[in-house]
């Protein structure tokens, strides 16, 4: 997994899946369409503001609410390279890993990092360098099982490999 570099978009606690992608757009599962409405009630014209690689930083319980995988898909295709949060809602966490979007639990970092900071993240090690403030943080490392899924690029390629091998 490569080192990720980007600018921070900072969000608060309990950002729910309706805010990430409103249900009014769920009549499609096209990634580009979903991405064009990502977080739109919170950050209008997000698509004009994000540069590929940028990083979402949030508070507690990020992604609470619905099971819609459309939410991490919208984030991924909007151009974000990863998400850092103090904690995640369970289904969102699983979904992000499953579609190959690295998401890291990093409470200390998330409290300190500010909007617009420039970060460098090593998702494999969970290390976070804030180039704006020259501070360094350590997020929680992924359990080996989850790392394996991320390294395959998501759950489907991971399972497809196994199916091909016949186990």
């Amino acid at each position, binding site marked *: 997994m490569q080192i990720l570099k980007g600018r921070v978009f900072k969000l608060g606690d*309990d950002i*729910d899946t*309706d*805010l990430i992608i*409103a*249900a*009014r757009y*769920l*009549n*499609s*599962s096209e990634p580009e369409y979903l991405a064009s409405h990502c977080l739109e*009630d919170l950050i209008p014209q997000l698509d004009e503001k994000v540069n590929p690689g940028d990083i979402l930083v949030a508070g*507690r*319980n990020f992604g*609470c*609410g*619905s*099971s*819609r*995988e*459309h939410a*991490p898909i919208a984030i991924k295709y909007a151009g974000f390279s990863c998400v850092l949060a103090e*904690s995640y*809602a*369970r*289904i969102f966490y*699983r*979904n992000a890993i*499953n*579609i190959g979007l690295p998401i890291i639990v990093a409470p200390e970092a998330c409290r300190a990092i500010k909007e617009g900071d420039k970060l460098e993240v090593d998702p494999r090690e969970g290390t976070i360098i804030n180039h704006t403030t020259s501070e360094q943080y350590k997020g929680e490392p992924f*359990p080996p*099982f989850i790392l394996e899924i991320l390294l395959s690029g*998501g*759950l*489907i*390629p991971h*399972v*497809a490999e196994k*199916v*091909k091998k016949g186990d």
Partner: protein
Amino acid sequence: MGMTIAEKILAAHAGLSKVTPGELINAKLDLVLANDITGPLAIKEFRKIGLDLVFDKNKVVLIPDHFAPAKDIKSAEQCRDIKEFSREQDLAHYYEVGRNGIEHCFLPEQGLVVPGDLVIGADSHTCTYGGLGAFSTGVGSTDLAVGMAMGEIWFRVPESIKFVLTGKPKNKWVSGKDYILAIIGKIGVDGAQYKAMEFTGEAVTNLSVDGRLTMANMAIEAGAKAGLIAPDDKTIEYVKDRAKKPWKVYESDADAKYSEVIEIDVTDLEPQVAFPHLPSNTRSVADSTHVKIDQVVIGSCTNGRFEDLQIAAQIMKGKKVHPDLRAIVIPGTQQIYMQAVNAGLVQIFVEAGAVVSTPTCGPCLGGYMGILAKGERAVSTTNRNFVGRMGHPESEVYLSNPAIAAASAVLGRIASPEEVL
């Protein structure tokens, strides 16, 4: 050391004699569910796995209910996609509009889920079936695709929190909805994150099966993986004529280990209202009566069952919906709709000036059939009041039980049934 009901069901499906919280297991699934929103995405992912057929054509359920009957062309295409896949795979359990209902009302009603089952659904409220003593949990479309293909997926065994609800509420309008809102108000929207909630105590056993399904339904609103109620005679009475397969009763051992035990005396509990924009933002109805509203929705997988409609009708009978307000009643399934017709409830609602819709998720997720304009407020018996959940980002949703919703429909503001009757 004993095991909880959640641990027992997971262990049994993983072929293990014992599991402990934190352990990662692969477990076999009894049922896999998706709808018109999550199904198309799951099918797309399923195609990439490299298998032609689902693991068992009798264990995959697809139901168009969210934007169905289709609200627009795109929705129609999503509904078509899951139907075509059902036909291609010869699925035994695809249910078309007119013979279905909201998935979490429909599956228990039809006996498609039974006590002891392990179920995943690409819908967060799949946790509803915990009300029957099944372990059921919401997943995303990719997990579902893998479930459809392999018939098993990985789980992290959750810790359990035990809730002991004692006493009998003095206020006769207090229901399962109020218990669960009070619990979420107490522990917060991440209070049971990654955990299983187990609901016990006389107040829970006194609930009907409908009331228990309502409680389990909202476990996800506290971040939980599942919400479980051990089956008893009432459960078996409910299940025995519906079950399409054998069931198995699991109960927690007396020495099972919980991360926490929370006791709540419901004797003095008042009906609850969750204010915008979190289900945990609860107040008693008495502290909420100043809020003027534009719409009432009675329905959803939380409170769209027959008992819910009965209670609402009892309050709206012979009354009129407030002139400035829309009341929308949505029976959860076709069968509940028919029951409501036969019991004269539909007539009561229509005479009162309410709209009675065909079963659908509709307004619950801001789909259609009652979307809020900027600045509008609704009282709704649904389960989420997030920003923009029912329409415009500057609209508001207040969650309540059906009795409060019905009384509010009559008075045009949040109200107690006592103010109407």
